């Protein structure tokens, strides 16, 4: 079953001088997949993610998430779609400073007017998965980067979205915190069948994925699948990247 279907997606920027950020991209992702998107700077990764997260509108082409085309949605329908079907993890966490860690996590439920006792129940389940139970009453400036990112992931998946989108989730983390975060992504994907798309520069982070789509100049350049061994997959990624001429060592 296809969770996400992207067909002939293009995005142009500029008025007089047209810059084609995405050129007729098509691919699909099945339920429960963990897909990495890689490519050099300016290849169109971020544009693709912006289109999938409905932050930006494509010039042509279609997106289908769980059979729904979010491009057609407007106003409240779109808000509800984002709230229920999408989860988003940012490079710089984007936690709200005015809320505690726990409050940040339940925010999507608050927006959906879920009763407080159910919010609490969900919070403890999710906090347990992401191992942030001890942080729930802390404020955002009291936790480390890795803890902040785990909070952001908890917030992104608390509604059990159809699609989890992550934009360089390890970009601001040291290697130890990055490893913990990636292991959690892997665990959520494996144990809870969370369909995930992650944009990254980092071949180490990418090696946790089951499949990598390489983009260059707005078009798909290559696609590789993991055979099961992370070490081997890492080597494969490095090989493609060196062919791609991008940065092999990430950020």
């Amino acid at each position, binding site marked *: 079953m296809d969770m996400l279907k992207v067909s002939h997606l293009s995005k142009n920027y500029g008025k007089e001088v047209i810059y084609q950020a995405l050129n007729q991209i098509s691919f699909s992702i099945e339920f429960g997949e963990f897909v990495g998107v890689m490519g050099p700077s300016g290849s169109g990764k971020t544009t693709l993610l*912006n289109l999938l997260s409905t*932050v930006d509108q494509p010039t042509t082409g279609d997106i289908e998430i769980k059979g729904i085309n979010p491009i057609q949605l407007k106003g*409240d329908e779109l808000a509800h779609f984002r709230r229920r079907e999408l989860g988003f993890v940012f490079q710089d966490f984007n936690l709200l400073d005015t*809320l505690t860690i726990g409050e940040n996590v339940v925010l999507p439920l*608050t927006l959906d007017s879920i009763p*407080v006792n159910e919010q609490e129940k969900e919070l403890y389940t999710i906090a347990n998965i992401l191992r942030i139970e001890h942080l729930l009453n802390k*404020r955002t400036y009291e936790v480390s980067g890795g803890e902040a990112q785990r909070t952001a992931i908890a917030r992104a998946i608390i509604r059990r979205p159809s699609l989890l989108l992550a934009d360089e989730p390890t970009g601001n983390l040291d290697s130890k915190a990055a490893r913990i975060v990636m292991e959690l992504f892997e665990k959520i994907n494996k144990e809870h069948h969370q369909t995930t798309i992650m944009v990254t520069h980092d071949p180490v982070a990418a090696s946790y994925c089951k499949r990598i789509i390489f983009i260059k100049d707005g078009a798909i350049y290559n696609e590789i699948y993991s055979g099961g061994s992370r070490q081997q997959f890492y080597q494969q990624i490095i090989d493609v990247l060196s062919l791609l001429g991008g940065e092999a060592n990430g950020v």
Partner: protein
Amino acid sequence: MEFKQFAFRNVLRNGKAYFAYFISTFVSATLFFSLTMFILHPDKGTFKSYINLSLFGAEIIAYLFLILFVFYSSSVLLKKRYKEFGTLYILGISRKQFLKMIYIENMIINVAATIAGIITGLVFSKLFLEIIEKLLRLSSLPFYFPIRAIFITIVCFLLLSIFVSLITSIFVKEKDILRLLKATNAPSPTPKFSKPIAVFGIVLLITGYVFSYFAKTENLEKIILIILAMVVISTYLIFSQFVVFVIALIKNNRNLYLKNTNLIWVSNLFYRIRDNAKMFFIITITSSAAVILSGASYTFWLNTLSGIEERYPIDLTYETYDKTASFSANEVQFIEDLLKKHHHSYKKIVVDYKYLIQEDKSEIPVMKSSVYNQFAKALNFNLLTLKDNEVIQIINPENPNASILNSVAGKPVHVKESISQSLPLQNNSFYVVEDELFEDIENKYVSPSKYAQYLFNTKDWSKTYVIYDEYEKKFGNNSKSLFLSKSHIFETEKRAYGTIMFLSIFLSIIFFVATGSFIYNKYYIDEESDKQKYKQLYKIGVTFEEMKKIISIEIGVMFLLPYIVATFHSAVALGALQKIFKVEVGAAAMIVMGIFLLLQIAYFFIIRLNYLNVIKKHLTF
């Protein structure tokens, strides 16, 4: 967590951002409430309609200004939260929820500020009423519990917050929020300016100043609006165009621009001034309004009260056009009885002119020397001594053309000397003659248009308005006589200027607090990006001492620029006032601008210290 809790926490845990906004709304609410409480005071008595009208007018101006202020502040503060809004958007907040959030947040701040303002207003109400009593010359007003004022204040501020929430939510565009999310953070474009418009701004300002120099009482009404428009528009152009233009000139001077830290602060200011042109403009206009208002009212207050002796040398004057002696005798007797009743020891001068008919049918007033000498004693000028056929000409300095007197009742006289001296109630020049000669003037030489004047000087005139009040009560409707009391005029003027002064101080405080809040918000908004900027500078080897210099110059310019322009505006406006109304503004202007400057300097040092601390902490972190 419920949605309401979420909005509450956004405000409560974000104290630093809302601090200045809250304080200034709170001060405004306090003043607004206090004024309403006074206007509705049951024992206030009835005022002259103009006082009631100006009290009411000031309240409306304050309210309209508050709408602008609250709107501007909240939209500035919301800008800083665009990234937060972007996150909420991604989490699926609906437009309706977003509006609700802004609405609740605005409500919390305004309701808190209003309640705090009302409580403070109640606590200090005795003090406020005492100040008002003093400035408006009222008898003491007792404390009362102002239910209606509380109600009006709450309703006004609730409406304000609903209205502002509505407008701000229209101004926050989804597109702008999303731009921040797309991570395509384009650097802000180079400030643009047009040389002709920059020059036009300066020319317009000078033209406005020149116009105000040529303003007269007669044409004031017509041109004041034109002058105002010119100055307001040119002020905006100066900040948005001219100053940017001047900095561009500095940038083009390579020797100056590339000299140690100049590079940093000049290029910073280049962007800053363009970005903050609107704020500079608002600060300049509100500061000018505050200084001009308080300067002008203080000027009138000082001038009127110090000029009273000169304008009214005699305490009480009575004159009547009724020729029957009994009529005036009756009223004068009433006045004298009152003076005695209130234990005022007084000196009465009975003024008696005879109007000599000349050959050309004109009339020349003459006065007998004993009456003139009574004046001389009361008003401290030289006594006169005259022989039979001598007369002395008294020339009114305001009206110096006088006809020549050759004979009195057929007897030739010669003019001994001419004295320039004005007497109360006499607008023309006249002659003083010897008493006997005066008495001998037969009726056929004298015009029958004779009327009587009685003047009274008391030991202490300050309470004699009571006599005026009682006279008014009894004889107020008769149009044949005119009774003036220095004390009454003094009290009336004092009350009128007291009202104006009180209201301009009232508005000035609101303007000033708002200005302070604008500046605080500005620095609060820039703090985050500046922290990053200075950290980068630190990494490439700029020392903290150098940063101190850069920051001081930057903050100094930001403070000074509006102050300088506002000072120019106020100086020109008060200068025009001096010319048009012939009042002395120097002292008042100096005091008001001095106080303003001191407050600004104090505020500059507070903001600078605070800012340096934030940067320093961030560098060592």
